[in-house]
Structures are given as C-alpha cells and as structure tokens.
C-alpha cells in the first residue's frame, strides 16, 4: 500500500510538472503543490480536496480583486480591507466542515499579490493560472490513482461506519455490564467512549469524500448522512445514560429494569444486521420493538433520587433504541433494501448569537496581526531577505497555528524546515545543474525524490515534505536558475516569519497552554454561573440583547469542555509534572459533566411543569452558585480546608437536602404526577438537579486536590 501510494504520487508529480512545463505555464510548482496536497488521500478525498482547493483559489482571487478594485492606489486601506477578509475567513474556519476553502481563501490573496507584485493588472490572469495549475495537479493525481492504483473512498467509508457500529455494540455491552454491576470495567468503557467519539468526528468528512467517489454514494448521500447522525446520537445517548451509573451502582438495575437483557440482545442484533446491509447482504432480522419498564415492586424501596436516575437511564436507552432503528432504516434505504424518502432526524438545532466565540476570535486576530506584522516587515525594514516569503509563511503559519492548532509553538517547526530545506538545497545545487532536459530531470530528480518522501514520511508530513521540496527546488517555468542565496534568503525569511508568529503566540493573546487552560476554565465557570442565574428568572420576559447573552453562555458551557482536555494534554509535563496534567484532564472531563447537566436543565427549562419546579427548587440554584464560586476560588488557589471525604460528605448532604426539598414540594402538591408528561419532566428535572449537584461537588474535589499556584506560576514558554 505504501509503495503503491508512493508510486502513484511520483508518477503524478512527473506528469503534472512535465505537462505544466510542456505547455509553458509560468508556475509548474503550483501544479506540483496540487499533487502534493492530495498524496495521502484516497481517490474521492483527493478529488474533494482538489475541488476545495480550486474553490478556495476562486474565493481568494475574488477577494483580491475586490480589494484591488476598491483601493487600487492606497496601500494601507487595501491592507486593512484584506485583513478584514482574512479575519472573517479565519474566524469562520472553525465553524464550517469544508474549512479548507476558507484556508485557501486566506492565503491566495497574499500568494497572488506577491507573485505579480510588479504588475497589478495581471492579478486576474494569475488567479486563473493558479486555478488551472492546481486543477492540473489534482486532476493528474486522481487519474493516476484511479487508473493505476485504485483505492475506493466508498469502501473506506463503509469500513469506518462498520467499525463505528462494532464499537457501539462493544460500548453497549460494556455499559450494560457496568449498569448491572456484571462487570466493573470503567476504564475500558472510557477508552471505548473516547475512540467512538474520535472516530465519529471524521465520518461526515469521509462521507463528503465518498460521495465524489461513486454515483451510488452521491445518490444516497442523504441516507448515509442520516445514518452517520443516528450513530452519533446513539453514542451520545449512551454516554448520557452512563452519567447516572453512580446512583444505580447498588440498585440491581439488571433485575429492576424489565426488558434490559432483551434490549441488549436486540440492539446488538440490529447493529449486526446493519453491518450485513452495508456488505450488501440481506439483514438477518428486522428491528423488533423494545419495552423497558421498571419493576414496580422492586422500586418501591427506591429513593426519589434513585427513581429519577432510573428514569433518566431508561429514557436514554430508549433514545438509543430510536437512534439504532433510524440507523437501520437509513442504511436499508441507502443499500436498496427499502424504498422511501429520508427524514432528517437527530440534528443538533443551531442557535445563533451575534457575540463571537472568544477563542475563535483570538485565533483569527492572531492571523490578521501576523499578516500585518509581516507586511510591516516587508514594507518598512530594508533589505529583508525574500519579503514575499515572509508574508506567505506568516500567513500559512498564522492560520495553522492561530486557528487549527493554537497550542503549537510556531518556532518549534523550524528544525523540520531546516532539514527539509537542506535536503532541497543539496538536490538543487549539486544535482539539478548536471541534468539535461526533462527526461533526466524526471528520472533522476522528480520521480525518486517524490517517491522517497512519500515512502518514508507519514500522514500529513507527506504533504508538508513535498510542499517544502517543491519550494526548495524552484520549478519556475522552463528557464531554470540556480542560486545558493535563494536558500539562505528563504531560510532567513522563514525564521523571521516564525519569529513574528512566535511573538504573536504570547502577545496580545497568550496561547501558552497554562494560560489558555486557566482562561477557558475561568470563562466556563463564569458562563455556568450566568446560565444558573438565568434559570432563576426563567419566567421573566427576555429582551433581544439578553437572549444573545444567554445563548452565548449556553454555547460556552457546551463548547469549552470540548477544548479543555486538549489544552490540559498540552501542559508542559516536565515542569508541572505528569500528575498535574492528569488532574487537569480529569477536571476538564468533570466540567464536561457539569456542562452536560446544565444543557439538560436548559432543555428542560421550558418543558411542561418545569417552571413550577424551578420555582420550588430555587434554593438549589443558590447552593450551586455558592459551589461554583468556591470552585472559582479554588482555581485561584484559595482552596477551602476540606479533605476529600469532606467533599463526598458535602455532596451527600446536598443531595439529601435536594431530596428533602423535592419531597416537601411534592407533599405540597407541586407538579401533580398523574399526567405522564409531567412525570417525565419531574424525574428528568430531579435527575438533572442531582447530577449537577454531584458534578459540581466532584469538580470541587478535583480542583481542591490540584496545586494551582504551581500551575499558575510564571514560566518560559519554550
């Protein structure tokens, strides 16, 4: 496979550069870059990436034309307007699936403007040339890959969906095992959940690529899209069901929840049938209806809290039942076992607020500041080597480091750049002058170099290695020049650009992991506090601006826990220690539970009967606010003098108090439970209240164990 991929890339590179030179195109290196970006991908993925690259080039070209048409003679307004475009594109990159188009749209104006800096009238021509040459590179690679070494993207997508269904089946078995105390495999469960969530993230992109690979996939894209979303919903519901396991640990749920063994068998059978349908085999069984109900005689001795947890678990299990039915239906339609139209289910409703997401905005600002700083160096510092290179590298690194991997220290890539450039230098200075004609160039340089890079490099390093090689050997038209100073200038330019981005890594916004972790933590706690407060006056009429603020905070509590574990894993282990990194990760996960519980409460807030219960449980809101304030104080190093057992005791006391308040409220007749909808709401609310109290106590316990002064102490970010 490795050899086949390397051969396909090397042949495509030779053909693409050969054609560009034969047609006397000005920048054969752009065609070579088109090949370079596709090399680690399958046919459909290459085509998709190529299309995105062409669309990005068009968008970038249009952006440049707008800027040039608006301010043809004014350098600084043009710079300001370009910066605004870059700001918008870079900000949106984190919100869209096809972010690569926006990535290119940020870079292309700079590439084209610097490629033809002496003649602004040729911008349109250059944009077209860039598009054509990119298309040539991508097209040649796709043709070579399909003709000589076909790898089906659809097959890869099917494998991924099957692997995900298998993981879901394993996860279900493990989860039921944990819930029924059959096994105590919490660690296995966490790792299975982690791998399921990770794999789920790439499924929609894989589907996009696969739909370009075959007509059948394109025709059934909607059904597959539904299948992927159903899978995601099932995994999420299972994760939610497990949140209540601590309460039910000793509750013998296996015997209490009638129908649980049948549920497990049925869902696993469904998932097996789904896998068979993906393989184009008839399914072994149609989905059967499942009924889960608690044994009334056994739950008589349950506390209200345990009943609420049992209710929550069975509710989430029924969600899994529905999601797997929908998955079955979608796959059956996609594979032609059933006819009918697709209903679009399990989509997360999008809530919009005009308040920007701060981390995204900071990343986008960093790109723009990098661009402006590099431009200032270009314009104001005399004798800077290779100024266009400084601009382009600052832009590329700005987007990569500012938006995609903000925790990466820009200067840390410099050693890799030196190695790649020295390799290119050796070829360029010692080999290329001895080659005569394209035949020799292709045989002794292009083919072996591309093959070796693709064979020995892994993953994204293949594209990076090839791009650097293309830059180093300088395929600029048919007239080849050899210059050693090009390398020294290019290296110096790269160093300057990386230094600019390194400064912007810490100024004006600090992206060092410890600062970012603390910043996000503080923002999460503030948003959690605001969301809890908003429940206090849920009945009050809400103005437009209040709604924007509320939606902003609700989005923050869902978004920040996804980012925090990444930052926690990037904390400098050698200075803060392994234990601190583990503690910070555990705290991030526990904040995720707070976020999930708050989301549940927000969703329940407007349900039938919820308003009344919110009023009854107002005392709880005050307790949570106090606990979150204590959590915030703990993160500032002002920890309470409680021992770990005190925290457990406090949590138990709070939950007992919650149960008493609940019982009192019911005794007063609040939320009559004769209507089934209200029973659902009341138990869901109680479950969410209990879950939140427990999650906050857990986070408080974890944060109290952390050495915050050490985490916060100043250190060099090297």
């Amino acid at each position, binding site marked *: 496979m490795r050899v086949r991929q390397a051969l396909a890339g090397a042949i495509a590179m030779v053909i693409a550069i050969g054609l560009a030179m034969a047609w006397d195109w000005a920048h054969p290196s752009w065609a070579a870059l088109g090949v370079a970006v596709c090399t680690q991908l399958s046919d459909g993925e290459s085509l998709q990436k190529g299309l995105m690259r062409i669309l990005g080039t068009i968008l970038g070209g249009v952006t440049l034309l707008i800027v040039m048409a608006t301010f043809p003679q004014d350098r600084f307004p043009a710079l300001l307007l370009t910066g605004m475009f870059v700001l918008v594109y870079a900000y949106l990159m984190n919100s869209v699936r096809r972010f690569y188009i926006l990535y290119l749209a940020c870079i292309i104006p700079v590439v084209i403007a610097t490629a033809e800096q002496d003649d602004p009238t040729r911008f349109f021509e250059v944009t077209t040339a860039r598009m054509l040459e990119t298309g040539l590179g991508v097209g040649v690679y796709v043709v070579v890959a399909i003709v000589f070494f076909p790898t089906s993207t659809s097959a890869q997508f099917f494998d991924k969906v099957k692997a995900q269904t298998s993981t879901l089946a394993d996860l279900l078995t493990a989860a039921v095992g944990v819930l029924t105390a059959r096994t105590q495999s919490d660690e296995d469960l966490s790792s299975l959940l982690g791998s399921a969530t990770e794999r789920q993230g790439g499924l929609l992109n894989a589907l996009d690529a696969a739909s370009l690979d075959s007509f059948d996939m394109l025709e059934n894209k909607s059904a597959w899209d539904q299948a992927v979303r159903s899978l995601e919903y099932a995994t999420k519901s299972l994760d939610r069901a497990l949140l209540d396991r601590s309460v039910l640990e000793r509750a013998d749920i296996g015997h209490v929840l009638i129908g649980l063994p049948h549920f497990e068998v049925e869902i696993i059978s469904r998932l097996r049938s789904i896998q068979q349908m993906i393989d184009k085999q008839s399914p072994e069984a149609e989905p059967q209806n499942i009924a889960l109900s608690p044994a009334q005689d056994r739950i008589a001795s349950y506390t209200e809290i345990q009943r609420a947890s049992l209710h929550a678990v069975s509710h989430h299990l029924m969600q899994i039942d529905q999601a797997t039915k929908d998955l079955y239906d979608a796959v059956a339609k996609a594979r032609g076992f059933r006819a009918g139209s697709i209903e679009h289910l399990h989509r997360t409703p999008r809530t919009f607020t005009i308040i920007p997401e701060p981390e995204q905005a900071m990343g986008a600002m960093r790109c723009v500041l990098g661009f402006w700083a590099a431009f200032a160096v270009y314009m104001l510092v005399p004798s800077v080597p290779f100024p266009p290179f400084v601009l382009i590298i600052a832009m590329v690194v700005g987007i990569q480091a500012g938006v995609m991997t903000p925790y990466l220290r820009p200067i840390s890539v410099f050693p890799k750049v030196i190695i790649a450039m020295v390799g290119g230098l050796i070829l360029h200075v010692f080999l290329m002058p001895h080659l005569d004609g394209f035949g020799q160039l292709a045989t002794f340089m292009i083919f072996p170099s591309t093959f070796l890079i693709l064979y020995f490099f892994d993953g994204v390093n293949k594209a990076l290695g090839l791009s650097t090689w293309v830059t180093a050997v300088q395929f600029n038209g048919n007239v080849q020049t050899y210059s050693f100073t090009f390398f020294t200038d290019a290296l110096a330019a790269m160093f300057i650009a990386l230094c600019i981005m390194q400064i912007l890594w810490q100024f004006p916004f600090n992206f060092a992991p410890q600062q970012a972790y603390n910043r996000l933590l503080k923002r999460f706690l503030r948003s959690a506090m605001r969301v809890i407060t908003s429940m206090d006056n849920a009945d009050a009429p809400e103005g437009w601006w209040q709604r924007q603020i509320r939606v902003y905070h609700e989005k923050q509590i869902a978004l920040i826990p996804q980012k925090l574990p990444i930052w926690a894993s990037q904390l400098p282990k*050698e200075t803060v220690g392994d234990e601190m990194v583990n503690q910070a990760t555990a705290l991030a996960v526990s904040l995720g539970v707070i976020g999930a519980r708050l989301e549940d409460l927000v969703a329940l807030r407007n349900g039938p009967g919820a308003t009344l219960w919110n009023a009854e449980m107002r005392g709880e809101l005050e307790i949570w606010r106090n606990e979150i304030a204590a959590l915030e104080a703990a993160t500032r190093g002002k920890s309470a003098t409680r021992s770990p057992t005190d925290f457990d005791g406090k949590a138990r006391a709070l939950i007992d108090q919650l149960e008493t308040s609940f019982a009192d409220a019911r005794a007063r007749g609040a939320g009559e439970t004769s209507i089934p909808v209200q029973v659902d709401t009341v138990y869901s609310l109680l479950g969410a209240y209990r879950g939140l109290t427990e999650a906050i106590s857990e986070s408080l316990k974890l944060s109290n164990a952390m050495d915050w002064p050490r985490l916060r*102490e100043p250190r*060099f*970010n090297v």
Partner: protein
Amino acid sequence: MTPKEIDTILGIYISPTFLVFILALTAAFMTARVSNRYRLSRFVVNPPLVFLSVTLIYAVFIGTFLIPV
C-alpha cells in the same frame, strides 16, 4: 563600522551578527529550559521580556568575547 563576513564552511561567507544571534538564541533557549526545569522561572515577573533580555545579554557577550562582530 566595517562590514565583516566569516568564512564558515567551504567558502560560504555569512554575517557574524547572524551567527551571534543564532548562538544567543540557542543559549537563551537552553537557559529558559533549565530555569523551567528547576522552577527558577517562578521568580520572574514577565518571562517573555526576560527571555528577550537574556538573548540580548548573550548576544552582547558572544559578540564581544567569542565572535567579534
């Protein structure tokens, strides 16, 4: 000040200032790593500024005593 160049290797001439700054940066980088490792950096109020200052101190030292610029 007379412009100078150093013949580093195989007749490749480079500016001594460039070499001095590369060495100074490397030395500052190592100093920072060591101070992080032994928690000496906690006595520093503004690490990025101190890093820059240490680089300049090294540059002056190297440029004066080791590779005169």
